[in-house]
């Protein structure tokens, strides 16, 4: 039971990190992306390759993941950031769909559908460490970084861009740079989460980085509440443990168990949005009509 719970906790920490970094883009900067799983995938593949080809050092893997995911996000984001709102959502959807095709085809780097197998367990100075503490440390580090930025000038810049882009520009803010930085930071966080995900599962393939995964991450964020620090974490814990908890219901016939679980899961998502549209921790009075 402990091992099982620690497995769920590890995934919750990893997805908490994903949802929190997405929140940085959506809640702080108002950049709506449904391609977060792409950056998670970039990080997972680069982290896995570091562990497979060099050393299974988790820090090195996370660093490589952050650099690759953050760096590539810049190349992708700079052109796409020229558009706003629904257009960026659509652009990110297009990116997500193309990335899945590329992940599938770039077999040399990603193993394609077959994936990368036998990723070694992370070792620090030769000692095997479980992923859970690593994931928790990564989560806390990123949360602290984001909290600091939220209070500092960069948070104000992003908030200004989110609320009134043209006014932010009129105050001398280089909107393109600020947005690109926000995207790169967020993608780097997703990349770290991806590397930890790869080290935790010892196996990754493209099916973990599909549109469904992006939507799941987004759902975690929305369910928890955008713009809040802990909302995404709560959302991640809830959405991950809900299917797990449902699997303890034993009276559902085995052949229908998947469908029943999915129905409860989907229904809960919809009902929550209808009755608490700002998410569980979000400020319900605060309308986000501009979103």
């Amino acid at each position: 039971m402990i091992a099982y719970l620690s497995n769920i906790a590890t995934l919750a920490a990893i997805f908490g990190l994903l949802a929190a970094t997405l929140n940085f883009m959506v809640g702080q900067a108002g950049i709506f992306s449904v391609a977060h799983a792409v950056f998670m995938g970039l990080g997972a593949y680069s982290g896995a390759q570091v562990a497979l080809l060099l050393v299974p050092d988790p820090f090195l893997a996370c660093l490589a993941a952050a650099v690759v995911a953050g760096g590539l996000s810049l190349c992708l984001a700079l052109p796409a950031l020229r558009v706003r709102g629904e257009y960026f959502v659509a652009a990110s959807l297009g990116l997500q769909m193309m990335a899945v095709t590329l992940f599938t085809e770039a077999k040399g780097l990603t193993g394609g559908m077959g994936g990368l197998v036998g990723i070694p367990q992370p070792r620090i100075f030769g000692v095997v460490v479980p992923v859970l503490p690593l994931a928790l440390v990564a989560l806390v580090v990123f949360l602290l970084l984001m909290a600091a930025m939220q209070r500092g000038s960069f948070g104000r810049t992003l908030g200004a861009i989110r609320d009134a882009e043209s006014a932010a520009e009129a105050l001398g803010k280089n909107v393109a740079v600020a947005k690109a930085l926000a995207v790169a930071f967020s993608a780097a966080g997703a990349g770290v989460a991806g590397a930890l995900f790869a080290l935790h599962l010892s196996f990754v393939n493209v099916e973990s980085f599909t549109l469904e995964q992006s939507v799941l991450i987004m759902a975690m964020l929305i369910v928890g509440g955008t713009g809040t620090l802990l909302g995404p974490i709560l959302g991640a814990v809830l959405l991950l443990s809900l299917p797990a908890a449902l699997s303890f219901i034993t009276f559902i016939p085995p052949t229908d168990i998947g469908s029943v679980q999915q129905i409860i899961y989907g229904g809960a998502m919809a009902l929550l949005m209808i009755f608490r549209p700002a998410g569980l921790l979000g400020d319900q009075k605060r309308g986000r009509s501009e979103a």
Partner: protein
Amino acid sequence: MSIALTCQGLARSFGGVQAVKGVSLSLPAGQVTALVGPNGAGKTTVFNLITGNLRADAGQASLHGKPIMGLKPWQVARAGVARSFQDLRLFQHMTVRDNVLAATEPSGWFWQPGGAASRAARLARAEAAMEAAGIAGVADARAVDLAYAERKFLSMARILAAEANVWLLDEPASGLDLSSRTRFQDLLKAARAQGVAICLIEHNLDVVMALADRIAFLDRGEVLAEGEPQAIMRDPKLAAIYFGDRK
């Protein structure tokens, strides 16, 4: 009297409609220039052309002798041109203090240069601007929760804090009651005394007459007349145009 900002022959058309045709303007330092004219005369478009929010089809603009045409809006802003918007465009979900602080932090990087001393200086600037605009009492309220006049003054506080030497204000006094208007006029007079070049789009002629050192009269994208307020206001032809569309 030094000229802070000049523009020559600004032109811009939208799908065949010539919104601005050959507008030339000079904004001297320490003076208030009012841009008046009927609705749709192209006043806001002139602002957008100067600040780079719109690309001009033709024309030049320079700030203290340096060309600014073709620069991006944020570059124009950093060169020292601050503007307000008719619809204010406040940062709704941020506090008043953060709104003003944001104006003191031009860098879009993860942090601002200058360390703690610079941070303290910026905070002091923001507090002073809020004090001057009379909104220090609501510094911790969110912009979206402010009353109408407070919102207008917050927009002004942002400009004060930006420490620009050219201000482009788009109907900053519209809808203000008499006492607020007086406070607003004092604010502008103080800035003028410090040598700021102010350009004002305003419909309220009382405000214009109280503040303006010069008036540029714009109609259908052209400057019809430019000069002393009294002289412009006495011109019956202009008055007919000005009042013609608001019968």
